[in-house]
């Protein structure tokens, strides 16, 4: 890593990728920026609006509520999925055919198209034909995700935990596999308890994958769209309407080009900012720890 050769011809290797990504990212992004500062009334009628759309988005109560819903959602699923994923990775079999079988089973939810995930849970939780909805009803619990906001929230969180914990578990599993056997052997000889092994061997070695896991889960949960859209349609009321759905409604449904473009940019920047702050904080924490003391 630290003995890379300076070579500007490497740009040639990067170029094809750059062209493609630029085509998919830069041009559309410029369109968005363009729309965000204009009012498009017709093919030849555009007005420069400055920051007007941005202000209206920031002052939109509905969107502000959706934003806080989004933050709460991401925090809740992170708080559940990270520990749960670590736990599952710890009890997964380490070798043999069981290891492969469990690995394949565990990754299953990750490979289901997101709207199908929504459909699966929509069916599963229905009171008339779904196993979970029916069972809860039989137990005398008044469970209805189309009427009760708490039920809807709980179901979406359960669905997301079902859907994405496997990713965290898989990352942690690969992190655990990379710990050499000698560490466990030394710990046994040092008479370390199970907890000490976790605290001083496994957890430190998992730091890197956990950073990736938290980042990916934060990003994806912050962009969640298809699953709640299919499951609850954002309801009841707007209790499970998250940012992506608000944006899609605004851009495609209502064709509000200007405000939705401004919304897009703010949305994007928030994700970038949070990810960047999280990442640099972690990296600085690790750096602070390292050059301590010095003989």
């Amino acid at each position, binding site marked *: 890593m630290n003995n890379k050769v300076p070579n500007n011809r490497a740009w040639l290797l990067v170029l094809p990728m750059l062209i493609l990504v630029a085509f998919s990212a830069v041009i559309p992004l410029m369109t968005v920026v363009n729309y965000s500062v204009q009012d498009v009334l017709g093919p030849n009628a555009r007005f420069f609006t400055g920051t007007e759309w941005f202000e209206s988005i920031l002052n939109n109560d509905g969107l502000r509520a959706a934003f806080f819903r989004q933050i709460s959602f991401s925090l809740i699923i992170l708080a559940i999925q990270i520990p749960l994923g670590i736990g599952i990775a710890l009890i997964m079999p380490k070798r043999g055919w069981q290891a492969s079988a469990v690995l394949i089973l565990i990754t299953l939810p990750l490979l289901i198209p997101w709207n199908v995930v929504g459909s699966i849970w929509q069916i599963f939780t229905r009171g008339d034909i779904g196993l979970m909805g029916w069972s809860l009803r039989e137990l005398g619990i008044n469970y209805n995700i189309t009427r009760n906001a708490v039920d809807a929230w709980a179901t979406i969180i359960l669905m997301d935990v079902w859907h994405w914990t496997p990713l965290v578990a898989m990352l942690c599993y690969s992190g655990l596999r990379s710990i050499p056997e000698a560490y466990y052997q030394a710990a046994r*000889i040092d008479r370390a308890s199970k907890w000490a092994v976790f605290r001083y061997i496994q957890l430190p070695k998992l730091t890197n994958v956990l950073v990736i896991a938290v980042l990916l889960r934060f990003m994806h949960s912050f962009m969640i769209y298809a699953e709640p859209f299919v499951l609850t349609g954002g309801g009841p009321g707007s209790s499970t309407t998250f940012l992506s759905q608000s944006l899609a409604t605004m851009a495609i449904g209502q064709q509000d080009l200007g405000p939705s473009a401004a919304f897009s940019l703010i949305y994007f920047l928030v994700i970038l900012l949070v990810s960047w702050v999280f990442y640099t904080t972690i990296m600085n924490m690790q750096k602070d720890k390292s050059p301590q003391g010095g003989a």
Partner: protein
Amino acid sequence: MAEITLKGLAHSYEKAPSGAADYAIRQMNHVWHQGGAYALLGPSGCGKSTLLNIISGLLEPSEGDVLFDGHRVNELPPEERNIAQVFQFPVIYDTMTVFDNLAFPLRNMNTPEYRVKPKVLEVADILELTPLLKRKAKNLTADEKQKVSMGRGLVRDDVTAILFDEPLTVIDPQLKWKLRRKLKEIHERFNITMIYVTHDQLEASTFADKIAVMYEGQVVQFGTPRELFERPAHTFVGYFIGSPGMNFMAVEHTDGQVMFGAQPLPVSEKLKIAVANARSSDVSAPNIKLGIRPEFISITNTPDSHSMPVQVISVQDLGTYSLLTFKLNEQTFKARLPEGHPPLKETAFARFDDAKVALYIDEYLVEAGHE
């Protein structure tokens, strides 16, 4: 104290071993005495590490017993044996300081903190780790890390044996020597049994009083470095110890002569009788060999009654001596020539030192009765 006895020990990684090849360790008996400095020497894959892990309790042997002072400890896990082990790659607890690393085994045993501190300081002093105590273990160099791993074994009062599994593999050559001396010093200071696994004969002979040479899952010889050199009990020991290793010749006894192929060998009468009486386990293809170390072959340009003409291939100058490669009966031999040896012609004459020729039947040494 702790005398480690291996009784009828065998180990296989297979669930149902079918033949000798399935065994990592084959039937062996061995005793390690308290306080000895031992080396376990052998090529990779000969079962050294397996044996070490069985002694420390990381592995349970499939057959036979491990006894500590006569107690059977087969089922005891490492945490209940009085043993420490240092691994090939240094194992340290990254997030802890050096002090905490050294204190770790003590704290795991609920040792009160006022006992922990003096003990850690004492061990750190011996290992010259005192200036590093407050540092994060993660940022140490490889040799410092290895010293920390060793220190974790030394802090425990109950440790009676430390096992080393090729501990110097990742250490720089110039530090290896220093660390090895440190080990020796620790051994002399504490009355601890040390078993040192290595594939390097130099490392083994500088560290250990006695060396056990392992080959294909068995200890083929257990002796001082000198014994291993002078009377290898097995052809493998002859080949593995010394540089270069022993020369071997497959021989048979015909018409009162010891024949190496078509070449009659001028050997002592005793040896002739011994070869004539040799009974190999396989009668159809008897496995009888003579071995001679390169050090005990003398080469001259003129023949005498006890020498054989050989074909000189090459002479390599290695500073204090030269190494001669020659051919006898189409087989390559090595011989050591003293400094200032006269240049050799294409055909020279080799003479084996009678007393140093060893007889091997089925790969094992048979004393031919010379003093």
